[in-house]
């Protein structure tokens, strides 16, 4: 079994499985975040649910593990691929336009998404879970006391000039993630063998629609908050 795990397809299998897991996570995360569009009450309720629900708490370390495995295997595979290409590069390479730009730059795109992820964790996760923030005053919703997470999120994008910078970075992060998913989605199916001539086309279309929905969904939030949460 060990040689199966360390084989090229074995390593890609882990990329694919963690990829599926992260695809589901991103969808759940966006769904929860879209409650921001319905005002402080809706988002604080969702945020409180996410912060206290036992299943979500159990899933948190598993999610972190999913990210770590995905990143480690991506790095190993990319290093091996660069080595396999050999020392001498082609002097001339024609672009046949058949492989998508995203498919050729998955590691770079993933790396940039990771940079965004770190920033994102510092902005919200770290403040919510560890350091706290003066914006996180307790609010009372239907008799239950909870942190005002809405104020923390809205405050980031409405902090004057730096707020615009953060809005730009979050929109950029959403677009980068969209590109990463545009190749990653169908590719995960291909790697575990769930694809054929018909389904490859269908999965590519579904993957592209999913990627666009995710990118638009996340990008809309800072724009919405900039306009309506002043």
């Amino acid at each position: 079994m060990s040689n199966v795990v360390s084989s090229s397809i074995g390593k890609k299998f882990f990329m694919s499985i963690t990829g599926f897991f992260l695809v589901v996570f991103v969808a759940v995360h966006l769904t929860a975040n879209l409650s921001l569009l319905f005002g402080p009450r809706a988002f604080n309720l969702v945020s409180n649910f996410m912060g206290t629900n036992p299943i979500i708490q159990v899933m948190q370390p598993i999610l972190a593990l999913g990210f770590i495995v995905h990143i480690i295997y991506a790095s190993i595979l990319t290093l091996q691929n660069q080595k396999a290409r050999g020392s001498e590069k082609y002097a001339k390479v024609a672009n046949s336009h058949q492989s998508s730009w995203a498919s050729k730059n998955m590691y770079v795109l993933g790396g940039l998404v990771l940079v965004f992820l770190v920033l994102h964790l510092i902005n919200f996760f770290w403040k919510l879970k560890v350091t706290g923030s003066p914006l996180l005053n307790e609010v009372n919703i239907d008799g239950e006391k909870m942190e005002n997470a809405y104020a923390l999120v809205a405050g980031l994008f409405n902090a004057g000039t730096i707020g615009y910078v953060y809005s730009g970075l979050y929109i950029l992060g959403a677009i980068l993630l969209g590109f990463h998913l545009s190749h990653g989605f169908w590719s995960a199916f291909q790697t575990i063998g769930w694809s054929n001539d018909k389904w490859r086309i269908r999965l590519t279309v579904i993957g592209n629609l999913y990627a666009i929905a995710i990118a638009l969904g996340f990008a809309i939030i800072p724009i919405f908050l900039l306009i309506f949460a002043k």
Partner: protein
Amino acid sequence: MNITVKVWRQKDANSKGNFESYKLNDITPDSSFLEMMDVLNEQLLAEGKEPVAYDHDCREGICGMCSMFINGRAHGPDTEITTCQLHMRKFKDGDTITVEPWRSGGFPIIKDLMVDRSAYDKILQAGGYISVNTGGVPDANAIPISKEASDEAMDAATCIGCGACVATCKNSSAMLFVAAKVSQLALLPQGKVEATRRAKAMIARMDELGFGNCTNTGACEVECPKGISITHIARLNREFLCAAVKE
């Protein structure tokens, strides 16, 4: 037509190579690319220079020997052809044509444009066959095979092992080749007997020989002279993962 050919010259596997440019006059547009290379070599011999070493054999697109990376594409600027099927009419008068060998860690250069593709043979030796007791020719139709399965197996079996997929892949992955060789057998009842062992052994050998990992860019199928689809790679993944579970 008058052209300039910029060719990779490398004395042997251990030497450092470099590009040399040669001018060729009065090449007829109807000549094949290899005929143009022959004219170039005649010219070099007449000048007392070393001719360019390159692989070629059948010159009718079925042996897979002619391995040249021409103007940035495996087998040059056309689809579903080998280099011998490429004609000079695809180029313009006055063009400079860049000719490189396949570049991949798995295919070391032997000399000039010749590369060592024996890695493919080694992968085949690991399991790209069926074990049968020889004897008389079996009766036709003794084993019923559906038209769909036989068509798809034949599509995979058209692979001529030229190496264009590896040469083109940004990861130098041999997955399209291995997928074709696994598919042509996995789809037929005769090949199913050893399917589990075959997928694992061939992938293990492929990894060992230093080919890269497939990242599903799909660049290989575009340059395959036989138009083999990456759908076969999905089948290979399926075969391999099923084999791993059965273990």
